[in-house]
């Protein structure tokens, strides 16, 4: 296995609101290897975006704060790093792109200005060199007429072009890790295909590790090597993209995949998971998914399952995979609908 470049270890990020403490990220651990693309999937409110913001220490504080846990970047715990150190890391070693490119670009500065700022922040280069670098980056991300676009403003570009500019900015300092938070969600499918293609090439050519936050399992299948599935602030399953999509273990992942309308299959009725995603809360007992789970039994309501190891980097947070359950009397009875089968 290649080197681990980024490792989250029992990360807890909580929000302190008027109505109480909200554990948005509740003990998340996973690893990102060099040159790898890892997808973090989940529905709204599962904590996937807060996880990525925590890595960069960009969680708005107050109300949010990293309560405990580590973010190890090449052996350094950056969850406790000072702001000065974080400024060196952000954009330079770990870069980030966001969902809505219009709100993440400054409307009153030209594209070139913003790219030059990013480069000059981290590298000792002259304005001229930085400008050339900016034009070069725009060309790499496939922007037509880069030497003209560099003097244009964000509103003059289309959504897909703006996202390309964001990627150019993120890649301008050759980061080792790129965090992409729903990079294509606001884009149309034909433009999404272009952007995914671009990101795949950058990953291959520059060997940048990508942490891809998304809710779209289709995008995951296209892009990722490994997948982390989150539900209500916790990791519920982890595995390679093939394992997750072809042989999901956790009942939530199974339900999620079954409830997708398929483009190339015929089906009569869609499967649907009953109920809605719960809000994370401090006084939650039992498995977060138990109220919606068709396999839940007493134990699921009483205690929260661990993330059981099923193999190398293959994990599921479900008592179905607890070795002890197999011998416990009164445990679940598997009939023809054995969810492990």
């Amino acid at each position, binding site marked *: 296995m290649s080197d681990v470049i980024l490792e989250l270890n029992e990360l807890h990020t909580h929000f302190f609101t008027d109505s109480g403490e909200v554990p948005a990220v509740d003990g998340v651990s996973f690893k990102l290897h060099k040159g790898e693309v890892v997808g973090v999937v989940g*529905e709204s409110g599962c904590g996937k975006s807060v996880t990525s913001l925590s890595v960069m220490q960009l969680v708005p504080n107050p109300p949010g704060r990293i309560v405990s846990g580590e973010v190890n970047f090449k052996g350094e715990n950056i969850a406790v790093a000072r702001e000065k150190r974080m400024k060196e890391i952000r954009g330079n070693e770990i870069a980030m792109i966001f969902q809505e490119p219009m709100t993440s670009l400054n409307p009153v500065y030209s594209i070139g200005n913003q790219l030059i700022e990013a480069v000059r922040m981290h590298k000792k280069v002259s304005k001229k060199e930085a400008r050339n670098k900016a034009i070069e980056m725009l060309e790499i991300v496939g922007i037509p007429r880069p030497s003209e676009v560099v003097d244009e403003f964000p509103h003059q570009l289309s959504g897909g072009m703006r996202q390309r500019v964001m990627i150019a900015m993120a890649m301008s300092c050759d980061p080792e890790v790129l965090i992409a938070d729903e990079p294509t969600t606001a884009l149309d499918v034909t433009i999404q295909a272009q952007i995914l293609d671009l990101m795949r090439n950058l990953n291959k050519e520059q060997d940048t590790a990508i942490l891809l936050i998304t809710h779209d399992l289709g995008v995951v299948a296209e892009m990722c090597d490994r997948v982390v599935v989150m539900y209500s602030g916790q990791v519920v399953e982890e595995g390679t993209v093939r394992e997750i999509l072809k042989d999901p273990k956790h009942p939530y992942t199974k339900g999620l995949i079954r409830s997708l309308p398929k483009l190339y299959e015929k089906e009569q009725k869609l499967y649907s998971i009953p109920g809605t995603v719960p809000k994370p809360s401090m006084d939650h007992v039992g498995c977060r998914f138990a109220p919606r789970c068709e396999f839940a039994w007493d134990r699921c309501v009483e205690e929260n399952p661990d993330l059981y190891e099923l193999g190398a980097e293959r994990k599921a947070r479900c008592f179905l995979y607890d070795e002890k359950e197999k011998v416990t009397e009164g445990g679940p009875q598997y009939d023809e609908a054995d969810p492990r089968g």
Partner: protein
Amino acid sequence: MTKPILEVNNLKKYFEIKGGVFGKTVAEVKAVDDVSFTVNEGEILGIVGESGCGKSTTGKAILRLLEPTEGEVKFEDQDITKLGPEEMRKLRRHMQIIFQDPYASLNPRHTVEKIVGEPLLVHGMTSAKERKDRVQELLEVVGLRAFHASKYPHQFSGGQRQRIGIARALANNPKLIICDEPVSALDVSVQSQILNLMEDLRQEFNLTYVFIAHDLSVVKHISDRVGVMYLGKMVELADKDEIYENPKHPYTQALLSAVPVADPDAQIDRVILEGDVPSPSNPPSGCPFHTRCPKVMDICKEVKPVFQEDEEQHYVACHLYE
């Protein structure tokens, strides 16, 4: 033989761009430009396309929520574009709409009872007792509980709010419902609940839907026939299995191939289109797709292709098939 409930003929909707000192019309955005199709009773017609292709404007123009610039909309053989306001108001009970954003389409200051009950009042159910009973019945139909009637929209989740929107649309037993991106704001697990609900309701009440969405898998799942729009024009229309298995228009082909599939083994010949959708205020001459089309010919740059039947019930607007 099923009969058409809705006939749309040469529908156009242009928006004027005002400019200059005197606020003269300087240009037009051709949001919907000569679109024709029919919808049969009890069927679901899906309309797909990317942002700005005019699919939502088409939906709103059919209901005259946006006044069409030109063209005919026939609902049960009656051209509704010629009706006066009072006649139109009476007709609206048969034609309803469900909006995309369940957060924005419900009045936050009204209780669910008032939201769902208002169309009943407008269309003549004056007894408060009757309305209350009907609202409770409707809530049960869409999978909510009777006690939800006294709550406010902010007390519900996104999926539940969309159910309220559906209950409101169903209130007067409509025949046709325009669904404008009804599930695109919802999470996958909730999206499938709403899609199933809409299918059940169609069977129970013999509804006809025009289902507008940008998600090709969702449209394929729910529709009987699918129309593809690009830059204000319908470029292809066919039975859903036909269009997904045998797409004829190069745009449909590219669009279908661009959808990421949640299957690591899927083999797709991907056609990646270059560039962006041109501006509808200044559309390209000839075929609107010729600037991005991988199969572009000389004729495409000059002559607009005609939307015509290529095979039985398979309509396409492309010079390749003329």
